[in-house]
């Protein structure tokens, strides 16, 4: 009987939370209807932008699981991400932190108004992360990266891990909210190495 009471109490609690979401939101929607709606929502999209309208397999799996995939999917996503990572030819993961700082500040690139010839894409790291004490205008969607390298004794293994996280965060955290800067060709290998330097170089203001 006690078990029944506890169960009833738990059900009452879950009902109380469940009631936050109106019942009509629970209606099932045909995935083809969602795809069709997206296709018709962006009629001016040029041919080379069409791929943006369709999530790839990793994104489909993450969206379907509300970004908390079950174990098997988690491993599939992680393996796929690991396989996509390309490494710097010279094996050096720590580049120029000053160039990295510029990339961390810049939100330029890939928007339909970003048409300046020869201007490179930024990483916009500060939009979501604290990195240096000097930059107080930082977002909080991602964790603070202050003292990132110092806390890891500036180890080469951690520089490689940081590179992998930026190249494809799903290799470390499947269904991370962070963009796949390398896999999605937002940044080049050389640019990622410079951002790694911002985090891992002893001279970087991130570690001061």
């Amino acid at each position, binding site marked *: 009987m006690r078990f029944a009471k506890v169960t009833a109490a738990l059900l009452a609690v879950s009902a109380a939370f469940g009631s936050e979401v109106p019942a009509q*939101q629970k209606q099932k929607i045909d995935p083809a209807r969602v795809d069709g709606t997206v296709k018709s*929502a*962006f009629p001016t999209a040029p041919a080379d932008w069409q791929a943006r309208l369709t999530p790839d397999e990793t994104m489909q799996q*993450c969206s379907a699981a509300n970004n908390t995939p079950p174990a098997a999917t988690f491993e599939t996503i992680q393996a796929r991400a690991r396989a996509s990572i390309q490494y710097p030819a010279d094996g050096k993961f720590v580049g120029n932190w000053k160039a990295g700082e510029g990339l961390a500040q810049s939100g330029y690139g890939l928007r339909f108004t970003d048409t300046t010839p020869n201007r490179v894409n930024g990483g916009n790291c500060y939009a979501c992360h604290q990195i240096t004490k000097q930059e107080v205008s930082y977002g909080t969607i991602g964790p603070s990266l202050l003292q990132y390298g110092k806390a890891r004794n500036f180890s080469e293994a951690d520089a490689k891990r940081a590179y992998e996280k930026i190249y494809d965060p799903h290799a470390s955290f499947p269904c991370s909210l962070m963009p796949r800067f390398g896999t999605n060709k937002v940044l080049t290998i050389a640019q990622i190495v410079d951002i790694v330097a911002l985090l891992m170089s002893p001279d970087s203001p991130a570690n001061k």
Partner: protein
Amino acid sequence: MQLRQWLRLGAVAVVVLSATAQAQDDATEKAIEKYRQMLREDPWSNPGLLDADRGEDLWNAARGPKKTSLAQCDLGKGPGVVDGAFAELPRYFADAGKVMDLETRLLWCMDKLQGFNRAELVRMPHPGGGQPVKELGAIATYVANKSSGMKFAPKLDHPQEKEMVALGEALFMRRSGPFDFACATCHAESGRRIRLQGLPFLSNPEAARKVVGEWPAYRVSTTHVMTMQHRLYDCYWQMRMPELELGSDASVALVAYLVSTAAGGEISAPGLKR
């Protein structure tokens, strides 16, 4: 206080905002909140009300190839009824056979009743920085303002309305584009920021009730009224997606999802934003 003085205060707020990189975030937020509080104390001081007035004139004027006003435009409560109409949108319209939010319905009325060219209206639907809101947006500001002080009470019980809410939720969660962003990337948790800009937790009813009713809103940083569909267009721009079409089903579905989540929240349009 005169409107001009308030506009000057608005300019001061812009300076305060542009200085945020050096300022403490909570001090900045307090300054903006003080500005908002002063606006609440003198509701006539919101520059967006100039566009609501402009919208009222546009609603009543004989316009378009058919030289007719919007007096026969039915926003859901009968032809020409504006008071309280926004509080019950989006809704299903039998004449169009579709669910429509305010802007989509105005687009439909301007096309069908006044004879405006729909393709022309959706071609450049939103103002650039410093430009006034377009005519459709001004009319939307007028109509929304006529529900200010009321609570969102959308029925959303028609099968097509229910489908739109579900579609909106699916779009809200859908990750795509080169940055893998969904609306939920930024708006599925409370207390998060992009740089110093706070992000509302829009799938949470309590948080949604506070902000959804503030659109259309006067935006200090761009010195114009931004409508809800313009807000969504700008989100997709930042998400590295193409240009969201005014009046598209995706726009209506997202508005339906947001309003269903914000149901019961008070409308205070035009609001005031960064």
